[in-house]
Structures are given as C-alpha cells and as structure tokens.
C-alpha cells in the first residue's frame, strides 16, 4: 500500500469546475486516455496539457467535476499522469469515477491555501495533504475502508476481476 505519495506540482482551479471544462465535449468521441489527456482543461487553461508532468496534482475549490457522468473527464487526468486531485469538495459521479479508475481524490477543506505551482504531496492513510512550499500540513477526509481498498487495488476493474476470478 502506498502511504506517502510522491511530491508534485499543484495546478490550482476554482469552484464548480465541470466535466466539460476538464475535457471539452468536442473531444469525447475518443476514449483513449492519452488522446484525451492532450485536451485536458484545453478551454479553461490551455497550458495544462503541454506542461503537466506525471505526478503533478490538480487542486480545486468546491464541487470539482460537476455535470456529466462522462468518465472521459477523470480519464483525461489519468492519461496526463495526474497523481491525485485535492479539492474542497467533489461532485458525486466524478468522485466515484475517479476512485473507480484508481485515481486518488482527496477532500481537503484547506485546499484553497495551496497556490498554483506549490510543491505538494498527499498521505491517504493519515488523511492529510502536505504543502512543502509553505511547510504546512492540512487535514483531509479519509476514505471509508471499502473505497480505500478499491483505490489500493487499482480501481474497480481489478476489484471486479478479483470478484469474478478473472484476473
């Protein structure tokens, strides 16, 4: 089990970032993570796709991922190599989709204290987010045990394979 995840750059966003802003709907005829990653946040923040590095974090305000159930949104961030999303709150289906894909989503009330470009890491076991730039640690909500094990297994697909005996 990964406990202290690697440090990465924070890409900060505001409240109510909907799925179309994460992955504009004109690109969702594809379901290839790498192709989708090329268009992540394209209208909202065109530099993201070109400059994001594997292991970086998306940091946002309230209601991140609102709107559509389209998994293309979290999948584009998986494709971009995002290590986790830290937000003050998440929309329900996005939260669920991210966990199902094995992408850590961390509810952190103090996410607004993180500035764009800060050096951050998350500790899922302890339920905390570390801001190495400011040398601060913020409390985060721990996942229920069932969901934590889902993420640890790599998402819903590996979990289901175990359940069906089709590994």
């Amino acid at each position, binding site marked *: 089990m990964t406990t202290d995840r690697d440090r990465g750059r924070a890409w900060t966003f505001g409240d109510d970032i909907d799925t179309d*802003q994460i992955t504009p709907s004109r690109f969702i*005829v594809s*379901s290839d993570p790498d192709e989708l990653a090329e268009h992540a946040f394209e*209208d909202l923040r065109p530099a993201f796709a070109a400059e994001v590095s594997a292991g970086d974090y998306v940091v946002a305000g309230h209601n991140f991922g609102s709107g559509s159930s389209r998994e293309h949104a979290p999948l584009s961030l998986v494709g971009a190599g995002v290590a986790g999303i830290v937000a003050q709150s998440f929309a329900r*289906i996005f939260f669920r989709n991210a966990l199902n894909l094995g992408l850590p989503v961390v509810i952190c009330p103090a996410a607004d204290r993180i500035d764009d470009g800060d050096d951050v890491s998350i500790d899922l076991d302890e339920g905390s987010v570390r801001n190495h730039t400011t040398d601060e640690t913020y409390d985060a909500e721990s996942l229920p045990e*069932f969901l934590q094990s889902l993420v640890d297994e790599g998402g819903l697909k590996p979990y289901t394979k175990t359940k069906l005996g089709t590994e």
Partner: protein
Amino acid sequence: MTGKTIAEKILSEKADTDVRAGEYVEAEIDVAMAHDITGPLAFETFDDVTPDDAELFAPERTVFTIDHHAPADGVEAANNHNAVREFAAEHGAHQFDVGDGICHAVLVEEGFVRPGDLVIGADSHSTTYGGVGAFGTGVGSTDLGTALATGDLWFRVPETKRFEVHGDLPTGVYAKDLILKFIGDVGFDGCTYQAAEYGGGAIESLPIHERLVLTNMAIEMGGKTGFVEPDERTAAYLERQADIEYDPDGTTSPDEDAAYESVHTYRATDLAPQVSKPANPENAVDVGAVEGTTVDQLFVGTCTNGRYEDIKLVADVLEGEELAPNVRMVVVPASGSVYRRMLETGVFETLVDAGAIVQNAGCGPCAGYHQGVLGDGDVCLATANRNFPGREGSMDSDVYLASPATVGVSALYGEITDPRRGDPQRYDDVILAEEASS
C-alpha cells in the same frame, strides 16, 4: 429508530439488508443503460473484466441508445455507433438507434423502468427515472461495464433532502420552474451525495411528464437520485404507456417518520416562472428579473423538456404566429414516438409554419456537439438542464434555462418574456392520452 426514506427502502431491498443513510452496500441492479458516448468505454471495461464468452447479467434489462451524436456528425461518432450496434447484437441487449430518441425518454416511454427498480445509466441525467418511482442514478463507464458483468454495484446510501410544495400551481408555473427554484435555493452542490424527494399537493397533482423534469434535474443540485412517490397516476401512466401493471402499495413510499437531512417547504401560490441565468443552473431568478433580455436562439428539447406535452405547449403559443424576426428556433423531440405524434397531430406543421426548425429525435445541440451549436456572443433560451460555460457551443455564448412556456412566449417577442403574457396551457397526461386515442 426512525422510518425510511424512499432511497433507504429501495437500497435495502436491492442489497437484501436493512440499511440507512451513510452505509455502503453492494446492491443488485435491475436495469442498466449506456449510450453512444459512454457505451464504447463501458464495453471495453466489460471485455476487460470478463472471459471471452461472457454474457450480460440480464440482456432483457440492458438498454443501449444512440442519441448524443445522432445522426453521426463525423467518422468517430459513426464508429461509436457501430460499436454500440455490434455489442448489443452480440450480447442480445435492447438497442435503440438513430432517431429513436434520448435514453431517458425512451426507457420510461418503453416501460423499461418500474417503481422500486434500481437503474444505473452511464449518463448523469439517469436520475430521471425517479419520476416513476425508480432509484435512477448516473454512473461512469467503468461502473456500467463491470455491472453489466456482475449485476451489482457499490453504493453509499444517500441522505435525503425533501422538497414539498403545497397548494395549486399558478398559471405559467410548471415543474421546470419548481426545480430551477429548488436548485437556486440549495445551490448547485446543495444535494451532493444526497437524494431529493419531491412531495406535497402540488407535486402529487403533476402529470408524469412534469414529474420527470423534477427528477431529471436532481443532478443539477448534485443529487445522486430524485424521487416522486409513485401513485395511482404513475400506475395509470405505466399501464397506458407500456401495458405495465403496477399496484402503488406503499412499498416505495417514504415512511411518515423518515429521517431527512432537511425539509424545504413552499407555497405554490408564492411561486413565479423562473429563469436560470448563465452559466450555472443555480442562477435562478423570477422571470421579471431578466425580462427583455434579447435572445438569438430558442431551443426546445432535451431529456428535460423535449416531451410531446412540452412541444405541444410551445406549438399552442406559436399557432398562427411567426417567430420574432431576430430569432431562430430549434425544436428537437426527445423520442421517435414524440416525433411521430407531432406529425399526426399537426404540431410539426404548426412549428414549421411559425418558422421553427424541427430536427430528428435525439439530444440535439444540448451538449454543444452539433445541430444548433452557438457561436461567439450568441444568447440562447433553452428548455435544457444545463447552461455551463460553452455548454451549447462557444465559451463566449450564453444559455438561459426556462420552461417550454417561457421559451415559447419569448420566441414571439425575441426577448425573454414572462410566459403569462401568452396565456400558456397546462397539460395533464389524461387529456393528451384521450387526444391520442381519438
């Protein structure tokens, strides 16, 4: 211990254990749905987690639709359509094709959804099914793909917010106005991880096509699902529409002492027609606050308000009239049966005579893909459910949300107009059913 909400009752039944809000369960699915955008990714998941000869958990209760890019607007969309057709044929699932209509309209009209069912759809507006008393919820493709194989899925049992409206709704105020008001009051994320229950005399008196509007837009306040308690009206609708026998015996009614997260009570007579300003459904205001806003396009359709009664109401307003010279109007029936009925009853002709463009059944321009996309600076007044930035096209366009009555009357003036200036009708299921049979 207190009684149960509708959500707690249905999930207890489907998980075969007594559960309450906050608990996690694995529950049995009754119906699963995906469409041309979310289907292909779900099929990949299904193929990934199952052996080569795997079967669907219940082909007779698995439904795929082709509605979002219908007809195909490009080669990739066409290939997605073919993927849906091939997977459905291979596994014996129900498949609706181009022109049959939007998943949420079709599933209800064709009788796939029954009160008390647990329905998952790979589309966020799957909350719609609560309009006939089912637990409908939107999921992603990974959820859907695994559930196609296992027939069950994990759920957190939601807390419930109850919205009660008492008294008779005034002229010009419809279910759409109620839901915009609710979303405005609790906020865009006011019901996140929760269920919405709608009740009270004004809700009970709503015909089914209006109840479906309330539940469709539960997601616009973050809701996991939404319910109108199924009753005799639901039973009559199901029998008429799909020859389904249903006895409203109270098994999907909330207990009188159910524990709610909160209860929001309204007097119907206090309510005015609502409009949600760009770029969030929670920006709901009384229509008077935005009256006079010039519009370029009017859009009547979507899984929210593309039903026959909605479109007929607009046609009534436009009968013998012409659209204001500064506007264009796009009308997209929610299903093929609505389209055919528009032809049979003259609604189609009325709309075309007034200058509207009537398209094939499907999602139309709702999500900005095609068939009426907005350009820079365009302003649209829509019966849709979302008005996010760029939702129907350009990031520099604006979408206002309103009821079909408000959209219809506004089309005559070329600006957002109080629907009460046009004396709009209100349709009941039964009246329209009689019209159809005569």
